[in-house]
């Protein structure tokens, strides 16, 4: 049986929680990266229709059982299928909380992505108006818990880490009001499998978002 394949641009993007989850779970896979050049975009454009994907897009995940796109769907599929489903909450209330936080985090993440992509007053103001208040709510929700849902790490922590990583590159002062979130971020980096992955040649330090499409330039984040 051939290895599963994860296809994405050669950056962190919205796919990085998936890569961290695969590293955490010890999954062996082919890390197919499309370069951030016009040639890379052309390469993907050329392959796109032939990958057997119902909804061609990046990232994609092909593992012999499924051929998937949509990063949240991929992350949750891997959380359910791999490692005995350790990264997916099982009881209804915890799962409802997970999906609720997932929704909030997706918004907070996209405030940053849109701000960088469009670099206009609408999205600069949107981030300023909403990101700090929502991060504050996430911080309060985290409280004294080790991970966002409690003692057990879940797929939501992998999303949360990447959101915090992006904001700390955008502005190192941004997360200072949220020491609990900074503690979670530091704890995440200390997880042995994560630490090993971060030190490995496969790890992508940056950029986070595609330089070609991001008007606002921030080293490590968009260039």
């Amino acid at each position, binding site marked *: 049986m051939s290895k599963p394949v994860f296809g994405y641009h050669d950056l962190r993007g919205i796919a990085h929680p998936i890569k961290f989850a695969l590293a955490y779970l010890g999954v062996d896979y082919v890390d197919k990266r499309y370069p951030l050049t016009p040639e890379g975009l052309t390469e993907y454009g050329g392959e796109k229709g032939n990958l057997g994907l119902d909804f061609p897009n990046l990232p994609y995940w092909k593992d012999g059982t499924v051929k998937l796109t949509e990063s949240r769907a991929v992350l949750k599929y891997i959380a359910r299928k791999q490692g005995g489903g350790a990264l997916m909450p099982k009881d209804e209330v915890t*799962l409802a909380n997970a999906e609720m936080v997932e*929704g909030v985090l997706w918004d907070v993440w996209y405030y940053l992505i849109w701000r960088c992509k469009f670099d*206009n007053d609408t999205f600069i103001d949107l981030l300023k108006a909403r990101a700090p208040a929502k991060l504050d709510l996430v911080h309060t929700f985290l409280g004294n818990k080790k991970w966002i849902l409690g003692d057990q790490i879940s797929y939501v922590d992998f999303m949360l880490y990447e959101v915090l990583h992006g904001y700390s590159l955008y502005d190192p002062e941004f997360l200072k009001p949220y020491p609990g979130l900074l503690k979670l971020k530091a704890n995440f980096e200390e997880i042995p499998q994560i630490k090993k992955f971060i030190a490995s040649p496969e790890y992508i330090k940056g950029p986070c978002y595609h330089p070609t499409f991001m008007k606002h330039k921030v080293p490590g984040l968009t260039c």
Partner: protein
Amino acid sequence: MSNSKPVFGYHGLRGKFWLENSFHTSKIAQPIRFQLAYLGVDYVDKQYPLTQEGAEEWAQEKEHHGLDFPNLPYWKDGEVNMTESRAILKFLARTEGGGKLIPTDARSLVNAEMVEGLLWDVWYGLIWRCYLDSEDMINALARCPPKLEVLNKFLGNKKWVLGDQISYVDFMLYEILHQYSLYDPKYLSPCGALLKLKANFEELPAIKKYMASPEYIAAPCFHPMYAKHKVVGLTC
């Protein structure tokens, strides 16, 4: 467990509400209302009026509902006090009606979540275009119709998105098709399978009954005061 009815709180709209440069935002509601009607759930449909008074009513209540992430819509049923429309939709799909609106096999569930992601993008293309009415957003909307066509192909001859069994994703899909058809019917004219699904949804007895009821909000979808691009039924 509370003996009182669960409460679903939202604006007197189908959704979404968006206010530029403000913390105030809210998600999408109508798929949840349709789902509750389909499942025959008895609940309080708390609708905040689209007036200054309605906005003030919500602003005053917001912090007092025991919500971790105060927002609209909210769902309070004695077991959870929750927000985030997709999370609510899926929680109800899992916990009501014997869970019949949530796929249980891994393959169908992942297909559901994949379509859910696609639908969210397609929906936001329309939401941004109507609320912001800017060149960027008009251009971004142009990327959505091809996605609808891919979805049309995925639907194929199936009755519902995942097959014979209706699921929570069909409730999201219906609302998006409803809103796109109000915006401009030409977007859906190449999508015969999607149009057939839309018509079949409206013929479901529980849905048909709900649409004929006084509780049903036919319009608008987006807030008339804040959606810059005016489309009858959609934004006014």
